[in-house]
């Protein structure tokens, strides 16, 4: 909301304000600003500018917003609703497709199909969207945070190869490196934990009140290792994630979990070599020999 609009964005918005006000006569400035997701001040500037445009010889548009409620008259030209641009249609089609994935309700699904057709039959074949986070989870999580209630869910941790049931006091959601997380106080760990939204399943919002104190500062990954890649460069590099610093001929990676590191190096099929710390090098060596022994 703080970002300043470009002239094009502003022109687009001014054009769209007219038909909107026309069908919402008497709407308050604050409500109108909320609908267009801009600050009150910016809306007033837009209305002022619109008013001046309405003073041309081509269209006498009468815009009234002195009383903090907005009215418009004689906007014969601009009151027509502007057609949707292709990008707008595509954005809605993608959103509708996500909703469709999360519901088995046939009524809703056929309603969505009809809406997609109306937005543009052609565009439907040009887009594809499957949600990574179930749309059912979001309202539950938001509700839990807002009403300070305990959330229960099953959580899969690939690093530990374990699926466990968790009960947590949700604190807040955050987005990091393109991944959505829930930061919460976990009852079984009796500590603050960060959970990936796309690994949470079977969420249940309990009636119990969450009692966790304010969130403590985020734990920084405490383990620092040095690695070298020998082959399958893109695949292995991507497996290491985002917290990677390129050194001269090695990679420095920050991590939380030794278990994750062990599995990643093994899954690298020899293309990832752990250089430091030495103890972990030995652990990997030992583990590889252990697994190798099974294949005699």
């Amino acid at each position, binding site marked *: 909301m703080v970002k300043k609009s470009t*002239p*094009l*964005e502003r022109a*687009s918005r*001014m*054009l*769209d304000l007219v038909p*909107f006000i026309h069908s919402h006569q008497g709407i308050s400035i604050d409500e109108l600003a909320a609908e*267009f997701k801009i600050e009150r001040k910016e809306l007033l500037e837009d209305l002022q*500018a*619109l008013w001046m445009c*309405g003073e*041309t010889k081509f269209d006498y548009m009468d815009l009234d917003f002195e009383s903090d409620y907005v009215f418009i008259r004689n906007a014969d*030209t*601009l009151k*027509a*609703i*502007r*057609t*949707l641009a*292709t*990008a*707008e249609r*595509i*954005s*809605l089609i*993608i*959103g509708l497709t*996500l*909703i469709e994935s999360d*519901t088995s309700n046939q009524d*809703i699904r056929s309603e*969505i199909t009809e*809406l997609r057709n109306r937005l543009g039959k*052609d565009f439907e074949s*040009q887009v*594809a*969207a*499957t949600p*990574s*986070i179930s*749309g*059912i989870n*979001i*309202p539950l999580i*938001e509700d839990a945070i807002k009403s300070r209630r305990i959330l229960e869910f099953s959580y899969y941790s690939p690093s530990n190869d374990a699926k466990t049931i968790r009960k947590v006091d949700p604190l807040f959601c955050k987005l990091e490196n*393109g991944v959505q997380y829930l930061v919460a106080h976990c009852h079984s760990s009796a500590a603050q934990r960060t959970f990936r939204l*796309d690994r949470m399943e079977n969420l249940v919002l309990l009636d119990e009140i969450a009692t966790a104190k304010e969130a403590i500062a985020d734990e920084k990954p405490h383990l620092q290792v040095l690695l070298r890649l020998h082959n*399958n*460069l*893109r695949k292995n590099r991507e497996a290491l994630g985002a917290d990677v610093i390129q050194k001269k001929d090695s990679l420095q990676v920050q991590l939380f979990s030794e278990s994750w590191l062990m*599995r990643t190096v*093994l*899954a690298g*099929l*020899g293309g990832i*070599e*752990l250089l430091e710390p030495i103890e972990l090098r030995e652990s990997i*060596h030992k583990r590889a020999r252990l697994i*190798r022994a099974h294949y005699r």
Partner: protein
Amino acid sequence: MSFHVGEDQQRVLTVSRKSERLVSLTIALLATKRFLTKKEIFDSIEGYEGEVDAKERMFERDKEDLRTLGITIEVGSFDPLFEDEAGYRIRIDDYQLEISNLTPRQLGLISLASKAWQDSALDGTSLSALVKLKSLGVESDLDGLPEISPRLVAMDPNVARIVDAISSRHVISFSYIQEDFQQKVRAIEPYGTGTKNGYWYVAGRDLDKNEVRVFRLDRIHGDISYQGKGSSYSIPEDFRMQPLLSSKAKLHKALLEIRRGKAISLVARAEEVVDGDEWIRVVLPYNEIDDLASDVLWYLDDVRIIEPVAARDRVIEALDELIQRHG
């Protein structure tokens, strides 16, 4: 009243002057019954200043800007006697939304769909789509809709650029990280886009290979650039994005031994499961042996490959290499 207008204020004035000029131009071109000449436009709309050249360049940019907003300007002849006197107008049929009614529930669905982009790449785009549809005067009704809040993560500005390129049929080029982790410039006619497993993709005709290829956006280095003019190609009738993002059918089968309770995601992908005491046996479909070996070794000593021999050998080879490297 101060005579000195600060630089910041100058910029604000320029910004507001341009947006006002664009709106005034739209009003003029919509309201007119006949075509308007450039001269008439320059004379009656505030904001066209300077020499004729400057005004004409400004007008050319404005027309392009309106086109970007999805507004089609009709060019016609003003006077049959003066054939080179071009005239401009906007037809209401081209300008106006073709959707004239929506049910409250439909608007409710649109509203949810638009929320999916909250704080993401097409946030502004989906919002402007929503306010236009709300202008139909229908009240959004979320009653009877399932408690679903779709959420997209699309922080990459390239997502918006790709949607724009597909919309305007612009060739795009970008630096792509290849399998050997080297970067190569690729150019495509973008046909479609999609998201799966949290990743964003663009598909289009690769100008080099002359066939449709799919690219993952997080492998694009830097910004996508537009090449040449818009409307420079057409999208084949039979193009479908969905199948390009679907998992390929798995052609081979492997026999694995998995420790009870472990490797749940492998067991979930298995075709057959035979129970046992400490170990269960599963038949797992796969395509590439390397991918299978990787998947299996992730589970350390909790998973073993029994068949095929080629896959077993690959795992043994990998383990030997690991042992040697970390010796």
